[in-house]
């Protein structure tokens, strides 16, 4: 035991040798940090920090360029090669701008809010496994800052603290738009956090652990996007809602609330909110990668090459980064394609669809898992040369039947609706029947305007009407 580890043991009060003794049937982390001295952790923390900052600089440029292409314009292309330094230049410019605190603001809280938002954004990335074990400065250590038996919950908890940045910014500005924006945002985040948490339960049912390294290890044969496909869909929807991004960026909808919670902020304090938003995007994307796409593991075809050569060492960073950027691209794509939803529609989607359906899905997955584990009887049946547990087949059959029934009912209703709406229009139309001229549909014949025109409700009033 070196001097440093001894000092650490004294500092933390946890014996160093115990971590290695964990048996296989445990929900504790799989990543082994016993050969990671504290200075190496500091180096890794620094690397993650730099990785996040650089990625943020890059993704803002990426977003503007891609959206530019989607809107058939070049996007920023002047500062540096391909405009790559545009974000840096913007940041420098923000730094040289005046930092305004409104007179009505609560000064302490107003200063504190952006700091909370930015600081909390960084923390969650600590538990994301970026790669497998590597040799680093003569130590064998996982490419992950740290891991906990409750790592995924930690992300949710830290996100919960991060919301305080938003809601306090809204309150402390002492102004109407930020207040409404902050309230909206908090209601939005808490509504979608439930569905997100429930979606993750299905993954935990399969992995048997909430530690991210365990979850990645459990996906070595099958990525959870397949058995938990519905959770994946729900997670992707909620992660957009959680990060206040289009089409769910109601907290800062410029058409109605100018800038939302950061209307009054300027200079670097505003930049902190901006930074936090993008880092949060990276965090939720990284979590999606870890939970559903096998984390740092190579895609199935590549993983088989040369007995898993690409699944070792530093290769993990490559796969992880690719998967991460697929999600970032998806965020940008959404922003380029979809208009903002209305607030009541957004809340209805969250409370009336996502939550009950995800809850039902979790129960269904619990039954499927129970059948797989043999809780519901052990009898098996041979089908196409393979043995299947009867219980699994029954459960899957019941779920499939229920899903089919639901779709059938829904489709019937949709068909009725379509039939009602697409009923052929009458052949003749009186354009003034309702009092206002209505143009005929194609193939419709016009009735000659009847004298009813003089009796139409009110001609355009010359005098102003009272508000109706």
């Amino acid at each position, binding site marked *: 035991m070196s001097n440093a580890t001894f000092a650490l043991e004294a500092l933390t*009060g946890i014996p160093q040798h115990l971590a290695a003794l964990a048996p296989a049937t445990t929900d504790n982390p799989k990543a082994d940090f016993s050969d990671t001295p504290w200075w190496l952790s500091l180096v890794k923390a620094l690397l993650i920090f730099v990785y996040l900052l650089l990625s943020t600089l890059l993704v803002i440029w990426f977003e503007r360029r891609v959206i530019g292409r989607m809107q058939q314009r070049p996007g920023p292309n002047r500062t540096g090669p391909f405009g790559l330094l545009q974000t840096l230049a913007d940041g420098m410019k923000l730094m040289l701008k005046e930092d305004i605190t409104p007179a009505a603001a*609560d000064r302490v809280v107003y200063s504190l809010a952006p700091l909370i938002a930015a600081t909390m954004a960084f923390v969650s990335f600590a538990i994301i496994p970026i790669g497998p074990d590597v040799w680093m400065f003569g130590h064998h250590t996982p490419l992950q800052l740290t891991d906990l038996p409750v790592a995924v919950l930690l992300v949710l908890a830290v996100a919960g603290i991060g919301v*305080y940045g938003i809601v306090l910014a809204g309150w402390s500005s002492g102004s109407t738009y930020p207040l409404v924006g902050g*309230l909206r945002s908090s209601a939005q985040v808490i509504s979608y956090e439930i569905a997100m948490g429930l979606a993750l339960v299905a993954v935990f049912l399969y992995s048997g*652990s*909430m530690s991210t390294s365990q979850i990645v290890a459990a996906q070595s044969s099958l990525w959870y996007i397949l058995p938990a496909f519905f959770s994946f869909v729900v997670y992707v929807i909620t992660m957009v809602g959680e990060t206040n991004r289009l089409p769910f960026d109601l907290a800062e909808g410029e058409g109605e609330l100018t800038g939302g919670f950061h209307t009054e902020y300027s200079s670097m304090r505003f930049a902190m909110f901006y930074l936090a938003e993008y880092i949060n995007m990276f965090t939720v994307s990284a979590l999606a990668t870890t939970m559903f796409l096998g984390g740092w593991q190579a895609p199935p075809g590549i993983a088989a090459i040369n007995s898993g050569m690409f699944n070792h060492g530093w290769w993990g960073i490559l796969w992880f980064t690719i998967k991460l950027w697929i999600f970032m691209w998806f965020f940008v794509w959404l922003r380029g394609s979809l208009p903002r939803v209305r607030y009541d529609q957004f809340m209805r989607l969250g409370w009336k669809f996502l939550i009950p359906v995800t809850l039902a899905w979790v129960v269904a997955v619990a039954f499927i898992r129970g059948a797989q584990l043999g809780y519901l009887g052990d009898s098996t049946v041979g089908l196409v040369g393979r043995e299947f547990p009867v219980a699994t087949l029954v459960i899957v059959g019941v779920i499939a039947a229920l899903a089919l029934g639901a779709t059938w009912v829904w489709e019937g209703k949709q068909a009725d609706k379509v039939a009602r709406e697409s009923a052929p229009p009458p052949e003749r139309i009186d354009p003034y029947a309702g009092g206002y001229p209505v143009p005929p549909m194609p193939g419709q014949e016009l009735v000659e305007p009847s004298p009813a025109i003089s009796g139409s*409700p009110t001609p355009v*009033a010359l005098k102003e*009407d009272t*508000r109706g």
Partner: protein
Amino acid sequence: MTGLGEQILFWVLGPISVVAALGLLFAKKAVHAAICVALVMVNLGIFYLAEQAPFLGVIQIFVYTGAVMMLFLFVVMLIGVDSSDSLVETLRGQRWAALLLALGLAVLIFTAVGTVTFGPMQGLDDVNNGAGNVSTLASLIFGQYVWAFEITSALLITAAMGAMVLAHRERLGQRPGQRVWAERRVRSGRNVAGLPAPGVYARSNAVDTPALLPDGTPSELSVSRVLVAREQVTTPVPYITSAEDVEGEIEEGYER
């Protein structure tokens, strides 16, 4: 004995928690008090983490930040954003009575806590390194304490009912949607194309400046009725006169 790191943690976060708890009592603004509560809750969560109870610690932060968020909204909603406590005593001598009772309670608690004897410390090492913290907790919840767990669901129903009774307002009719409003406008034949937009002038295009009708009078309809009620409507007169000045200049230019 606890480790050195844990002691340092305790002596750093302990005072912060106490100060924050006192802040809850003495903060004048309700929102500051709510922030103090959040700080205490997060600190408690960190203490649980240090006590080798990771699940409990994270859940403490996870749930209580949510709960305090609710409290925060509740506070803001009930009493208004900027309101502060009034320091006027409503009951005579209330302050002294409260102080006396608090002292009595403190003495009671300290004597009760002071007589407690602790057994040898067990720690959670065995559990945490065996089946794992969360799994062991689960086997307790679904084993020994399964009844309490089921009762919790009844508690949650009660909470939902309470919230509905306190905060929900029944709506008697259907709320008119966007479509209904549009149809209603067409049927009544008034403002069919919507209300007129506020005025746009060279020096102002804010919503508090009314538009001009063809005869030159300002249109009241073009300004939000909230602004009218608050008497925040400005007149377009200065903008009109300045526009006329500019026109004069242009005409002069023609004549030259």
